[in-house]
């Protein structure tokens, strides 16, 4: 009876009794969810355009963040520091992501075109370990502090007295939410309104049809991998500012998997909504129900949420409906 009370009554009593903590939990979940959505977005972009499940998206988050901070450190060691150096490093990091996209297209995608999906998927494993080794060789394995001040990202928090207590909004979390939202909106406009965006959607619908109307697959792949690289860079900056830029971030990126299961591999809105459901769901679960089993349920709860959704919608929330002729 006590157990049933702890599961079905007590958490809701706590929510009513301490609404400020409920608001704080929802806010933390929202911020995590937005960042998960950003990581998932990188996967979705590439999957839509090339049908490749890019296992390397997680390490791209780390690699891009390391490139930014590593370049800044090298500038600073040469006596060039401050905001100008930081933004120069940022521009160069974007350039590195473009070069990476071109190299991957030329050396991985183009030679493997028309190969089974599993071959391309395994190739992204190779890219992952190559980037890990290359990143460690160039920038070292030490965690690095994100250059928050130099990039004019805010520090500190707004403590707002509300709901009989207080809710703390970290300025960096607000910035992350705003920047991620702008980025998602920008990508949506890019896909819907621009010529390249329409070409990307055409490629996503059918490679052969797109080729037949003169769309260059190679060019589209470069653009998509570059876009995913920029998304990874933004994620690396935001998550790096909340903790550190280290290879441990690669593990956080795995949280995108349940988001993708939930939102579907081909849907941008799915990645966003999936990210929010997973982010908020896992925080609520860990906070209100985690203590019942000694805590630490967050790492697997996301997958449980995703699997529950899968039972009802195997294609995910916004994924294309699976119709097969038999």
């Amino acid at each position, binding site marked *: 009876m006590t157990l049933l009370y702890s599961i079905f009554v007590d958490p809701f009593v706590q929510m009513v009794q*301490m609404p400020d*903590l409920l608001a*704080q*939990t929802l806010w*933390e979940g929202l*911020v*995590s969810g937005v960042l998960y959505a950003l990581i998932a977005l990188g996967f979705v972009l590439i999957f839509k355009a090339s049908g490749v499940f890019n296992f390397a998206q997680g390490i791209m988050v780390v690699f891009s963040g390391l490139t930014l901070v590593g370049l800044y450190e090298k500038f600073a060691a040469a006596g060039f520091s401050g905001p100008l150096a930081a933004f120069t490093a940022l521009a160069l990091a974007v350039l590195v992501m473009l070069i990476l996209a071109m190299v991957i297209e030329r050396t991985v995608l183009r030679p493997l075109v028309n190969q089974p999906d599993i071959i391309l998927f395994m190739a992204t494993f190779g890219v992952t370990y190559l980037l*890990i080794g290359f990143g*460690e060789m160039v920038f*070292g*394995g*030490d*965690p690095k*502090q994100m250059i928050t001040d130099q990039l004019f990202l805010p*520090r500190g*928090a707004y403590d707002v007295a509300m709901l009989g207590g207080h809710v*703390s909004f*970290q300025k960096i979390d607000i910035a992350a939410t705003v920047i991620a939202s702008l980025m998602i909106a920008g990508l949506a406009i890019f896909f819907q309104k621009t010529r390249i965006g329409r070409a990307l959607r055409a490629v996503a619908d059918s490679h052969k049809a797109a080729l037949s109307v003169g769309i260059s697959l190679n060019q589209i792949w470069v653009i998509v991998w570059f876009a995913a690289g920029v998304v990874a860079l933004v994620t690396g900056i935001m*998550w790096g500012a*909340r*903790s*550190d830029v*280290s*290879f*441990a*971030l*690669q*593990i*956080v990126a*795995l*949280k995108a998997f349940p988001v993708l299961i939930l939102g579907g591999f081909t849907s941008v809105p799915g990645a966003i909504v999936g990210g929010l459901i997973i982010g908020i769901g*896992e*925080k609520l679960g*860990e*906070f209100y129900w*985690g*203590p019942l089993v*000694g*805590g*630490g349920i*967050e*790492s697997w709860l996301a997958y449980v949420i995703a699997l529950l959704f899968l039972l009802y919608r195997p294609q995910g929330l916004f994924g294309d409906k699976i119709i097969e002729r038999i």
Partner: protein
Amino acid sequence: MSLKHWAYALAAATVLSLPAIPAAQAEDSIYVPLFTYRTGPFAGSGTPIADGMHDYLTMLNERDGGIGGVKLVIEECETGYDTKKGLECYESVKPKHPVMVNPWSTGITLPLIPKAAVDKIPVLSMAYGLSASAKGDIFPWVFNPPATYWDGFTQILKYIAAQEGGGVEKLKGKKIGYIFLDASFGREPLPLIESLSKELGFEAKLYPVAAADMQNQSSQWLNVRRDRPDYMILYGWGALNSTAVKEAVKTNYPMEKFISIWWPSEDDARGGGDKATGFKTLNWHAVGANFPLIADIQKYVVDKGKSQVSSKDKVGQVLYNRGVYNSMLIAEAIRTAQKVSGHKVVTGEDVRRGLEDLNIDAARYKEMGLENFAGPVKLTCADHNGHFSTFIQRWDGKQYVKVSDYITPMTDKVEPLLEADAKAYAEKNAPWPKRTEPCDKAS
């Protein structure tokens, strides 16, 4: 392919797969493998320790030509703090006759404990690993000086009690939070916490952090905000430490009441900004490079480009010096082994005796160029840990500063539990071999 070609291919493969004849097998060298991790999620903690360990031993080779005139063959094996890779490292170094292994992971140490006696390779798990392996009569091949995780927990409790103005009776009614890496290392003190919380009357609140969520701890700290523990104790590693400090700052947790086991580095505290001032950790050795021995490391290793340190100011930082301390134990064990066995080129069996006879007193520290670097270490046949005192160091915004006297562990509480745990381990792993190794008179 013809049969002949197959035969050639097989012969070639056999030749290629034969292990290279290691230098360690030569008569004039001692093979010391170092299990390190300069890559992966835990590299932040692993790299400075690896640098300190490697540089000390390299310095001995460069300055003294090794130990007792015998060169050391130093070889790193990258584990990535991954138990599976650690075991692969062990299997790869075993044929080269290492005189000891340093797993640098509780997860890697645990499966090596049963292997040590069989392979005759001592395991040195310095202040980590299985706490109960301090019992030399049950674990003759495992050593974990200078203190166990259980000792560390009681030392933090004693410090907390002192902050409350008295002895351990002051812990009664207190709420103490324990945030930890949800892995072998972090779970190690859980039996002790369960027992002591009942005996001393404090309430323990547990906040496990999975390795996948090391940089995503907001849920745990929301629970801290709800539970409002009087003190928080941290057993973290890698990115977990820096994120915990940042989250504590974010939650406005009073940093003076946030105390860690001995693993956080300067970078871990620095990441929390000015508000991280007051964060505390245990330690048992000095920080800084102002020691003749460390000056020799600078001169013979760092300045000659034989170190992997990313910058010279890393030398002397807390985890670098931790690595130096670890290699000092290795070197002193080899030196003692040479003395007690009469062999210049010692074996794992000799070094096991060397570890049991280890006796590093103040005079020896001075002789090594490490005067006042750390407290004395004396191990015995029965006690492979020593349960030595540690002190609290406080982050002042720039560096760690020692803020307490040496604190002894609650030996009266820990000892019976360790005894019981060691026996339980032997029963669980029956038939656990009875100790047959004789004790030297010195120990």
